């Protein structure tokens, strides 16, 4: 009897959850749909839902007009570069905090976190000034550096929480066998930490990809990633919904797919281990 009730219950909750889920993601689905319409159909009233002439024209036009691929590669290099650089700096730091904790480790961790809370607007002018001074304005190197710095606290934190889950005895055994510190990190710790490192990379690529304060303020034509590419569509110009949609899909799709794989890491990474 309980079974029958629970099946009905399940059906009701399923219906409710799917309705809500589709409603929440509707803007994304609608954008995807509109990207395959012609400009005229995109503004048709009443809007056409599936019965229209599907076209890939918008994607071609967007690439031609705003040079999607250059912005795409800028995004890849900036997001990937800043994450890799951050990982390289953070692994040794997180390792020593997790396995050789001192009296001040906790304070250092919290202090690192506090630098993440620094509102970007408070340091916009100094950073722009330094960028001009060192010729970093509108360069990918400059953005790699800045995004690495703003995400470094999260990277250290995530790695730290992952490393702490690795039993210290294994490391001690390696040390007994005469492994040097460097070998211990390279051959014993790193293989065990690969899943944690991969999760950290994933989340930080997403965060860097979507970062929209520094990327908008420190780039122009040369180094602008996709956040800047899409901002160039902010002034309306005749009929442009279909093109805007295509551009939006092209900017979001790569990271959306990565994002789906990172749900769990997202919670850990963004709450600094406070919610598990």
């Amino acid at each position, binding site marked *: 009897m309980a079974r029958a009730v629970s099946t009905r219950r*399940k059906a009701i*909750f*399923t219906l409710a*959850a*799917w309705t*809500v*889920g589709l409603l929440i993601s509707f*803007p*994304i689905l609608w954008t995807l749909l*509109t990207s395959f319409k012609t400009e005229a159909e995109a503004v048709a*009233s009443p809007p056409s839902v599936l019965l229209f002439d599907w076209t890939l024209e918008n994607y071609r036009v967007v690439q031609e007009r705003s040079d999607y691929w250059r912005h795409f590669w800028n995004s890849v290099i900036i997001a990937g570069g800043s994450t890799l650089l951050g990982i390289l*700096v953070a692994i*040794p*730091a997180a*390792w*020593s*905090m997790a396995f*050789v904790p*001192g009296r001040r480790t*906790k304070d*250092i*961790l*919290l202090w*690192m976190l*506090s*630098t993440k*809370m*620094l*509102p970007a*607007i*408070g*340091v*916009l*002018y100094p950073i722009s*000034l330094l960028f001009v001074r060192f010729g970093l304005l509108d360069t990918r190197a400059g953005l790699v550096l800045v995004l690495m*710095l703003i995400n470094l606290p999260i990277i250290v934190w995530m790695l730290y929480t992952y490393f702490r889950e690795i039993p210290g005895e294994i490391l001690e055994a390696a040390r007994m066998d005469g492994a040097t*510190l460097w070998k211990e990190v390279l051959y014993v710790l790193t293989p065990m930490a690969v899943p944690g490192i991969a999760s950290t990379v994933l989340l930080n690529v997403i965060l860097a*990809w*979507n970062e*929209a*304060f520094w990327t*908008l303020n420190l780039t122009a034509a040369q180094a602008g990633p996709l*956040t800047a590419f899409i*901002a160039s569509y*902010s002034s*309306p110009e005749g009929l442009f919904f279909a093109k*805007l949609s295509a551009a*939006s899909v092209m*900017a*979001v799709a790569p*990271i*959306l797919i990565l*994002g*789906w794989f990172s749900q769990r890491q*997202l919670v850990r990474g*963004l*709450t600094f*281990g406070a*919610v*598990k």
Partner: protein
Amino acid sequence: MATRHSRSAARAMMAPAVLLLLGWMLVPLGMTLWFSFRQVLPLRGGDLGPAGFDNYVRFVSSSRFWPAVETTLVIVLGVLAITIVLGILLALLLDQLIWGQGVVRILVISPFFVMPTVSALVWKNMFMDPVNGLLAHLWRIFGGDPVVWLTDYAMLSIVLIVAWQWLPFATLILLTAIQSLDSEQVEAAEMDGAPPLQRFWFIILPHLARAITVVVLIQTIFLLAIFAEIFVTTQGAFGTQTLTYLIFQRITDAQNIGLGSAGGIYAIILANIVAIFLMRIVGKNLDR
């Protein structure tokens, strides 16, 4: 056992990260602090000498200051209220046994991965455009006059857009917290005949208290700093000038660096007040 040798090695391994962050914090912050006590007008010759506390006084006594504080608070509180309440309901729903749970989760979580410039532009044009937006079509179907969202209800529109972006975050964290709840406890209450509402109020909600606090604090820090959503929609017009945007305009439009820097110091102080509470929770967690 950590030997003295490994201690110093550990310190050396920590050094690059610590030094980088120290530099990142101290250098720009020091410059902002310096500029905030100077009269700096690049269009009129640059640094025109010391200004004492003038910039700080002028920033606060400007007629734009209090409206900007109000706007900031409305956005932060509005988005928090929407995302927490809907987030709890959604988390409870997603915690149930349903068919296609994985797909529904993906649908719900997706807005979080859409970059702020895209979500703001999609909402602004395809939904809130008074002529061709989907909402305008909807209004017309029901015989109403289309609403000019980003002009007449600019604040509401911004709050909706930002809430849409952050709802997945709140939901995901609250769902994680609900799933860590001991199911036996809930079942025991169910056996004892506690109705659903009471189970929620006395068992689930107290269990969520910590997660809710974390969501509130983290979102507040990000929401105080929202920028792109306003940059590509109203540009601070129609009563949507937040504190962040006011400072941004003081620096880029008015080119008054001293004044903008003083504003920046206020923003930093504000963010740090929130951050202290967050640190306390995170710090407590470290000891366990």
